[in-house]
């Protein structure tokens, strides 16, 4: 990427000339951040922190500056909370807008859990979209996870309820509940998620133990609104950022971390079930600015 190369060169050039960080330099850095979808406001916050540190610590070398930039970026991201492993099955609810990668991410998480020797059930809570159930069914087969479905058109809350039953009976360690993609602005569909959550809690105290919000790394500022409204509906515990194998930087999660202090647990790097990595704030920061 040319802009990023230029920035690195510019940091080097500026500092090798032993000149101060000038306005054009900060403008250029802002441009890099905005082009990575960090957003104007969050980029501003970040720049303020950097400017203060540059002044205070009298930073002059480019490597030191880049290191500081990485530190500041990485420090924004909170660690995912570790969930106390519940008695009985752990119930994981997966939510997000249309097409972000919920179903595929469930396949990846199921694969990972299977590899760790856990007994996995995936439940087809998307009873709405054409062939969503078949899609999850195929993934269940490929990952070796057990599969629960009540068929197309079934009430997703009923699927959730009965999936917990199935897991209790089947002795599963973890249940991943897929849900239909929905725009966060659709009140009735968000209420449906609330209901699913309520039903799970009634069926099994403490469930769902984790709510995962799946975000697409190509998304721009709208991801802020997605995070806010899904969090209001079901209290999001973690974010999973998909499609980072493209050229998008996913910088919107910087804004999300700054505004919502929401941890990111995993990133998606492809369409195969192996293409999931734990999120590292440091690696993410490196990729964002280098």
């Amino acid at each position: 990427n040319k802009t990023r190369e230029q920035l690195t060169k510019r940091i080097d050039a500026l500092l090798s000339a032993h000149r101060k960080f000038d306005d054009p330099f900060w403008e250029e850095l802002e441009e890099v951040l905005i082009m990575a979808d960090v957003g104007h406001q969050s980029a501003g916050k970040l720049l303020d922190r950097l400017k203060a540190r540059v002044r205070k610590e009298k930073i002059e070398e480019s490597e030191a500056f880049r290191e500081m930039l990485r530190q500041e970026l990485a420090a924004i991201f909170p660690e995912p909370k570790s969930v106390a492993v519940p008695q009985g099955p752990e119930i994981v609810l997966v939510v997000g807008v249309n097409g972000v990668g919920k179903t595929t991410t469930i396949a990846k998480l199921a694969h990972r859990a299977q590899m760790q020797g856990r007994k996995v059930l995936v439940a087809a809570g998307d009873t709405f979209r054409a062939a969503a159930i078949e899609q999850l069914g195929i993934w269940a087969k490929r990952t070796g996870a057990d599969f629960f479905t009540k068929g197309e058109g079934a009430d997703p809350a009923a699927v959730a309820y009965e999936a917990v039953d199935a897991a209790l009976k089947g002795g599963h360690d973890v249940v991943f509940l897929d849900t239909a993609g929905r725009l966060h602005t659709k009140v009735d569909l968000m209420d449906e998620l609330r209901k699913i959550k309520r039903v799970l809690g009634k069926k099994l105290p403490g469930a769902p133990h984790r709510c995962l919000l799946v975000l697409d790394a190509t998304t721009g500022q709208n991801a802020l609104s997605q995070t806010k409204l899904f969090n209001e509906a079901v209290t999001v515990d973690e974010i999973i950022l998909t499609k980072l194998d493209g050229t998008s930087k996913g910088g919107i999660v910087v804004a999300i971390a700054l505004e919502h202090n929401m941890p990111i647990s995993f990133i998606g790097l492809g369409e195969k079930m192996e293409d999931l990595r734990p999120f590292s704030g440091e690696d993410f920061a490196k990729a964002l600015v280098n």
Partner: protein
Amino acid sequence: MFDSLADRLQSVFKKIRGHGRLDEKSVQEGLREVRLALLEADVNFKVVKDFVDRVRDRAMGQDVLGSLTPGQQVVKIVHDEMVELLGGEHLGLQLQGKTPAIIMLVGLQGSGKTTTAAKLALHLRRMKRSPYLVPADVYRPAAIDQLHTLAGQLGVPAFASTPEMKPVDICMQAREEAVRKGLDVLLVDTAGRLHIDELLMEELVAIKAAAGPQEILFVADAMTGQDAVNVAVKFDELLDLTGIVLTKMEGDARGGAALSIKSVTGKPIKFVGMGEKVSDLEVFHPDRVASRILGMGDILSLIEKA
């Protein structure tokens, strides 16, 4: 559609229009806010920069339209540039030439290609055409099923592809089948792919070469951020797109990707997806949308009189 971008810009304009005399400083001020509104709507940074520069140049060197206040003139310039950015009148599907006509849908993963194929089938049937849905995504689990299910809901025929077939063969066989069945428009649903995936992009080039489609529509998610331009440019470079479909526009997406993609490819936005149902497709009227974004009903009529 574009509501919150519209709100932002309109409040900027209210301020500008309030100025009796408009000096360089207040123009700069106004433009800074226009810039922010566009960036917050995810319009690409470079597109915003060019846009603001053009408006500034014109606003500073403007020929004074006597009957407008300086504030109104700036608003008019922004409007003109916005119409330019979005494109003029609606351009429908161009299906002249060989029968059956072929429409290819391409784009990133999850953007809405399969759903849009079904929506277009309904649109075409309403235009008294006989569409044929062709599933050419042999990779995504149950992608063929998905299109067949939608076809079933619509009562539109769909080609019986299998995941073992090659996408190019699917298209060629589907075309023969369409001729036999007397169907006159093929809607080819391709697998989602990254623009940097050379192998898969080659596959699209091969389908294009073999099938010779009249329309290659780039299906893009309205919530896409800054990278939209890189993706669109790459698809356009390799395939010479004929148009754009913007999906998931019924939410609160500010839709800056639309402005960006149109601006960098020059290709028209032809349709907008406004929901998950097969009937949730709207034809796109750039001129009307530009006016709506800018909330210009009142000032436009003033300008037209001038």
